[in-house]
């Protein structure tokens, strides 16, 4: 489920609340100050955002979020759907709040450039957070180049953040890039049934690619990768028209 561009996501209050309950007052105070600092550098330096992203892991930790029923009730439905999926950490919520706050101060083209820049200059956990938060960011289509580029990584946690439990590729990736993402997930031994939106994008071409990969494995005397029959079955069921040109 994606957030329509017309509906801005306000994560800051939620992130601050979660920082208090999951960490401590110091963590939420830090987050509050970091958000304020980003708001007040409108059109200026991105340094407060970069510093906050860099420091955030120390303040917010790496623990998974697993929101409680009470916490989920207090979230808007689109946010709740996202934050309940596997992989989300408090760290990702905090970072999404920081990035959303920065994007609010920028026109879409500048926002896309900033997002791409943050991705390229992020270390592993930052890249993971940036990819995971994609469905919550406005003007999703403008972020496509960065997302496709990030899908080329071989660093498993980063790749998994775009490929699994993330609606963004199914929503925005052109056919070639989506197919390559799924094939790569299979190649890396990841469960392709966790690629969100796969049923709607499983095409004959994707089926051909995974069958081709399976036969390569067979010819090499290796096991057939998991997910091949699943994809073939989905392709047979659907009548998915091809999407736009590849990146």
């Amino acid at each position, binding site marked *: 489920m994606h957030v329509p561009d017309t509906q801005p996501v306000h994560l800051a209050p939620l992130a601050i609340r979660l920082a208090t309950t999951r960490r401590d007052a110091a963590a939420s105070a830090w987050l509050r100050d970091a958000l304020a600092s980003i708001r007040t550098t409108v059109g200026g330096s991105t*340094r407060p955002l*970069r*510093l906050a992203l*860099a*420091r955030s*892991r*120390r303040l917010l930790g*790496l623990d998974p979020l697993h929101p409680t029923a009470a916490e989920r009730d207090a979230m808007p439905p689109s946010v709740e759907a996202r934050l309940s999926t*596997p*992989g989300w950490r408090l760290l990702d919520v905090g970072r999404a709040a920081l990035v959303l706050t920065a994007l609010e101060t920028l026109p879409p083209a500048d926002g896309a450039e900033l997002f791409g820049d943050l991705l390229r*200059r992020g*270390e*592993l*956990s*930052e*890249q993971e957070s940036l990819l995971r938060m994609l469905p919550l960011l406005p003007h999703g289509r403008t972020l496509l180049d960065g997302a496709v580029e990030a899908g080329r990584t*071989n*660093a*498993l*946690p980063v790749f*998994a953040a775009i490929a*699994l439990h993330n609606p963004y590729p199914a929503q925005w990736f052109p056919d070639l890039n989506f197919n390559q993402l799924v094939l790569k997930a299979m190649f*890396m*031994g*990841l*469960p*392709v*049934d*966790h690629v969100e939106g796969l049923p709607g994008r499983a095409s004959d071409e994707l089926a051909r690619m995974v069958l081709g990969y399976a036969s390569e494995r067979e010819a090499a005397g290796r*096991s057939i990768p*998991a*997910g091949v029959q*699943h994809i073939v079955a989905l392709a047979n069921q659907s009548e998915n028209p091809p999407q736009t040109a590849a990146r």
Partner: protein
Amino acid sequence: MKLFDPHIHMTSRTTDDYQAMAEAGVAAIIEPAFWLGQPRTHAGSFEDYYLSLLGWERFRASQFGIHHFCTLGLNPKESNDRRLADEVMDLLPVYLEKDGVLGVGEIGFDDMTENEIHYFGAQLRLAKELGLPALIHTPHRDKVTGTEQTLALLRELDFPMELALIDHNTEQTVGMVLDAGAWAGHTIYPETKMSPARMSEIVRKHGTDRILVNSAADWGVSDPLGVPKTVAQMQRDGLDEAALTEVFWNNPVRFFAQSGRLDLQEVQALPRIDQRDLWEGNSVLRGQTPRVDLDRAPEA
């Protein structure tokens, strides 16, 4: 026994090395930023290198169950192009804040030029400001003088000695470094620098306080198993398990924990960057094992 190599340049090493290190018990490493064997000509080269230490190299190490941390900085060999050096200095304040960075380094002297002094000093000031330890390279030529000048600069800047790791020591320099209250690193190379037998003698003579041992394995003829080989030598020489644990685990942890960035519990366990998290709930794997064998239990 779990081992920590606090100075090793894995960028230049193959996965064969990671495999051998893991089998020999190396569970944590520090990769300091250094030169690549020839000078870089763009600040972007430094930035991409920092990103690789924080990114790909960290992931690569995790595939072998090894915690990878780094220090970042402008090394002395590349301090002499001031325009480029200034651009690199501009990168450091943000990069030093990123996850995985435990200190500023390698910094220090190589030829002891004016430029080297300038950037060494600037980075010590930056380390002091950020509360980060400094990993300090001493010259391989005229080392005694280089070490004396390093200590003099640290005193001049009122840099906390307990946050200074002065590396590549020999019998001639270790005494003055320890007397000054700093930490003394030693690099075990196959032919040059320090040997396991000599290292064993240094520990016998000076004790284990503030003594670190590393391999500094890099692009040259060097040995990524320098640390486990030194452990073996010391065992043969009769050093007890407690002393070995001090030198090869507790000391590096203690030194770099001063950064406030090293989670003591986390470093005792296997790296979190592994695949088991991704197999939550339903898996379509049907009997396939995760990419890296992580079934070995963390050692006590």
